[in-house]
């Protein structure tokens, strides 16, 4: 067994299969959670019949349905760009899964610049969105794509700046390194606390900006179905639409994973062996954050474009800059 794992190519193949399986599974789990939780919040039942019980197979049935649909490409569309846009969106999500540490060893590749990689890759999906919006030859799609681009510029900065505080504290950009730093971060006594205890501002900014990255309410302006019909996905059908859908939910999972790794201690929980319990601990944290996002979505209306920009430039960025300054001062003084 260990011989097999030692072989580079076999290990690589195993890792690829693992990621390939993980992305749709996480998307299904979070998508199903969204259906059920939103139903509960609105005094509905939600999916009920598919799969025999609790409607657990609803999204699988939906997925199969999408594959049966005709793949419609508008006549005026830029065909190549139109075809590749959903793949790019999904690819950026898949690439994020590479650096998520589920335990000290259960990670596809621990990069020294893991955080940097995450921030860089997560913004690639916006290029996919912009491509989709531009190539659809639809005014609503175009506006959705441009809104996504504007949103990226506005919210990439606070996302980045919020992480800087964590990097200063941990002294490393490797995600495993950051979790290990939190495992030995004993600021209030002998029990290790995650960084959210001291980087609370950074955590809030990160989560807000992550919501914007994910195009979720209250920042879902690129799709905004009451204004832009369906934004950049208006012209998509069939499995290309499914790609966007999968991408959205898998991205929720990966963003929550990054947030829990950076701020909530990742796979580490005091008193539990990270090698064995790490994946469970991390999954629980991820699902808690995903629940938070679902909760927001079904509570808030969406912001207006100018309010969105104002919020980013006038609040989030100054706050996160101040956070960096304070963190730096404490790091030097203490």
């Amino acid at each position, binding site marked *: 067994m260990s011989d097999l794992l030692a072989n580079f190519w076999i290990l690589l193949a195993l890792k690829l299969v693992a990621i390939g399986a993980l992305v749709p599974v996480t998307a299904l789990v979070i998508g199903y959670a969204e259906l059920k939780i939103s139903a509960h919040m609105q005094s509905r039942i939600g999916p009920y019949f598919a799969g025999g019980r609790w409607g657990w197979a609803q999204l699988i049935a939906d997925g199969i349905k999408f594959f049966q649909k005709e793949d419609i490409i508008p006549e005026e569309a830029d065909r190549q760009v139109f075809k590749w846009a959903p793949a790019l969106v999904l690819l950026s999500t898949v690439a994020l899964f590479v650096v998520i540490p589920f335990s000290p060893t259960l990670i596809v590749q621990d990069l020294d610049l893991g955080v940097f990689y995450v921030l860089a890759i997560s913004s690639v999906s916006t290029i996919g969105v912009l491509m989709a919006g531009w190539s659809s030859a639809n005014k609503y799609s175009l506006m959705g794509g441009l809104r996504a681009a504007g949103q990226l510029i506005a919210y990439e900065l606070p996302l980045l700046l919020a992480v800087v505080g964590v990097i200063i504290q941990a002294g490393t950009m490797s995600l495993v390194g950051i979790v290990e730093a939190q495992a030995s971060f004993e600021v209030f006594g002998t029990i290790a606390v995650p960084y959210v205890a001291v980087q609370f501002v950074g955590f809030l900014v990160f989560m807000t900006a992550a919501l914007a990255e994910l195009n979720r309410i209250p920042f879902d302006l690129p799709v905004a179905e009451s*204004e832009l*019909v369906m934004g950049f996905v208006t012209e998509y059908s069939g499995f290309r639409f499914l790609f966007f859908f999968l991408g959205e939910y898998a991205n929720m999972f990966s963003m929550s994973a990054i947030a829990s790794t950076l701020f909530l201690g990742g796979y580490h929980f005091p008193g539990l062996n990270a090698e064995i319990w790490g994946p469970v601990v991390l999954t629980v944290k991820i699902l808690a954050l995903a629940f938070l996002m679902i909760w927001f979505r079904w*509570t808030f*209306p969406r912001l207006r*474009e100018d309010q969105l920009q104002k919020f980013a430039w006038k609040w989030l960025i100054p706050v996160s800059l101040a956070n960096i300054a304070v963190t730096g001062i404490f790091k030097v003084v203490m």
Partner: protein
Amino acid sequence: MLDRSALHHLSEAAVAIELETPDMTLNIGPQHPSTHGVLRLVAKVDGEKVYDVQPVVGYMHRGYEKISEVRTYPQIITLINRIEWVSGYANEIPFLVATERIMGVEAPPRAQYIRLILTEMTRLSSHLMFMGSYPLELGAATPLMFALRERERVLDLIESVTGGRFHPNFNRIGGVKPVAGAGPSQKKASQDLPAGFLQETRRAMDQVLSTSDEIEDLIAGNEVLLARTKGVGILPAEVALAYGVSGPNLRASGVDFDLRKKADYLPYDELDFETAVTETGDCWDRWWVRLVEIRESAKMIKQAVDQIPSGPLQAKVPRVIKVPKGETYVRAENPKGEMGYHVISEGGQIPYRVKIRSASFNNISILPHILEGILIPDIVAIMGSLDFVLGDVDR
């Protein structure tokens, strides 16, 4: 070598060139999620900014005024139900009262009270629909379910009396249809309101009142929603009056005009209620006025249930309705605004002409004025706050 002055001129020239961005014409509708049906807006936009909007109406014209000229009066009641389908029952009242006035009959007091209770219930159902659909247009899906749950109670009550939920066709000229609460098994139709209806109504109204507090908490406490609605789409009182805007939209602009107080088509003068008036006339005020109206309507229904007189439900009218020569105009405060019917009779079973004044048509005539120089998301916020129904616009 170039001399400096020439360079200077070149740079000046470069600055003077302005990049021309062509306007984009955006056709919003007739098939669009938030145009409430088939309204079409031709908007000239520059990026997100809108600087000219022309509404195009008529996609749903069904010609009710013309059809009314070849239908008998009782048949017309069925038709006009469908003009504004969210509050079908309330549409019937002004036409009925107009017909009755030409004929010189008056519905008995009990029938009038039943009409009043049902009209107010329709208002509740219409406004509750607005309470839910407006946040939905701003992106919040949950209030819709809360509001529809309450609306269900109201619709159940309407159904228990009339047998219908949206288009009850319950009114008769000279009274109300004296068949209610009878299941298919019951041979002899009951001659009055169903048993327990009044108690059930009291209970449901208490429930609506408490839910209106819940909706207020949910929505008025939501800062994103406040940011989206406060100061957006301000409609000054004089503009509103000039365009003939009516109903809650007019009262939100600070004009205290409520036909329930000013006209006498139903015994509203025997009830104690207040009209909701706010100052600014922005989207938030239009929302607020409707919330207050829900509360006032619920209180009104409770009062009406307490003091409903007993007696017959139907005045004496001939079996075949023949209306003498004459004409009249009766207007009423519908949930969406002022609804009026100008009925001209040349004698006989069929009216000569029925002119319908519907609230939503005048209410959306304000759109080119109010949608100028705003952002695209505000189109949705403002249109939603005007609370129109396309059937009411196009008739």
